[in-house]
């Protein structure tokens, strides 16, 4: 299980100053907690592309932002991700909630028109990891408090490479 308290502790462990993003059902509790947290400044945006550009500006100005969005928003905001965090080489960790992960068959479905339109499969889940791989973006899955060290490692890797690193949130944060 992923808990808000442990996720926030992890953010503070790696020195996060700002969280920029947009909530969904699986990150709602985290956003509620962030709204009341005295140590981390929450910036809720109207569209995910804003989050990447704002995070870039925060980093330029010397802060340590982290982005939290849903996988639908990641697909919506591709050019902002490309033109801000990737093109600018900004070392920011991005948490992306993995909507629809439980609808994915094992192995994942081929990305055919028939599969992408099946009502049993959430197509954004089917497209998430292939999209990240196609963009050569590194990522880790986090689905339990015992996985949270991956966020620490992601921050280190982002800093080492001057490049964003992605964490896919595979369960609801409670």
């Amino acid at each position, binding site marked *: 299980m992923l808990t808000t308290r442990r996720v926030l502790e992890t953010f503070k462990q790696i020195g996060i100053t700002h969280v920029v993003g947009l909530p969904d059902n699986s990150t709602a509790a985290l956003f509620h907690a962030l709204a009341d947290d005295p140590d981390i400044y929450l910036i809720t945006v*109207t569209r995910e592309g804003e989050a990447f*550009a*704002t995070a870039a*500006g925060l*980093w330029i100005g010397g802060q340590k932002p982290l982005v939290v969005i849903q996988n639908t928003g990641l697909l919506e905001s591709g050019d902002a991700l*490309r033109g801000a965090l990737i*093109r600018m080489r900004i070392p920011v960790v991005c948490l992306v909630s993995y909507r629809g992960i439980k609808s994915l068959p094992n192995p994942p479905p081929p990305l055919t028109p028939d599969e992408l339109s099946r009502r049993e499969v959430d197509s954004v889940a089917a497209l998430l990891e292939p999209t990240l791989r196609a963009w050569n973006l590194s990522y880790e899955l986090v689905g339990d408090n015992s996985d949270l060290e991956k966020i620490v490692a992601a921050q280190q890797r982002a800093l080492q490479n001057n490049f964003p690193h992605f964490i896919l949130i595979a369960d609801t944060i409670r």
Partner: protein
Amino acid sequence: MLTQAEFLQPLARRRADQIVVSTMSLVRAWGRLSKHELDFAFADSAMGHAQSLALGIALAQPQRRVLCLNGDGSMLMSLGSLVTIAQCRARNLILFIAQNNTYEVTGNQNIPGAGAVDFHNIALACGFPAAFHFSDAREYEAQLDKLLHLQGPILISVRLEPGHEPPPNRKQTEDTPYLRGSLADSVHRLHDVLMRTE
């Protein structure tokens, strides 16, 4: 209606140690007037998001003023960011909108709502504490000193004549120094300058 020079020259004359983020047709035009180390060209980047990058810098550097020189077409690409900026109460952010009603760098095609969009009233409706519109060069210059010292975030839209700037590029042969490095180099240089002078 102002010319691009009537918009930018008074601003360049009054510029002190503010960070200036320019984008699209304003990149080269500003670069011809200023060679300051706190100039940043939002070019070869995420189209429509210059004001969000400026917001991030402003929140990170509350002791400095940040001026964002945005275009009307660029602003329309992310109007929701006006709500985010207002919500964040970035007191040190001034957002200029050069309103020439066209996509200048692609040859002056009309933007959606050309002539009808009222950016300063949109900003007020989004929660900006103050917003202004100018279509007269003398009035703009007469007010500029006062505007640059107001508590932000403020939006200033300026009605401009259509110009003929081509798209900004990043090449070693650029006349504008802040376009000669890669976007990543420019970003990391500005980061280093801000950390050094903090």
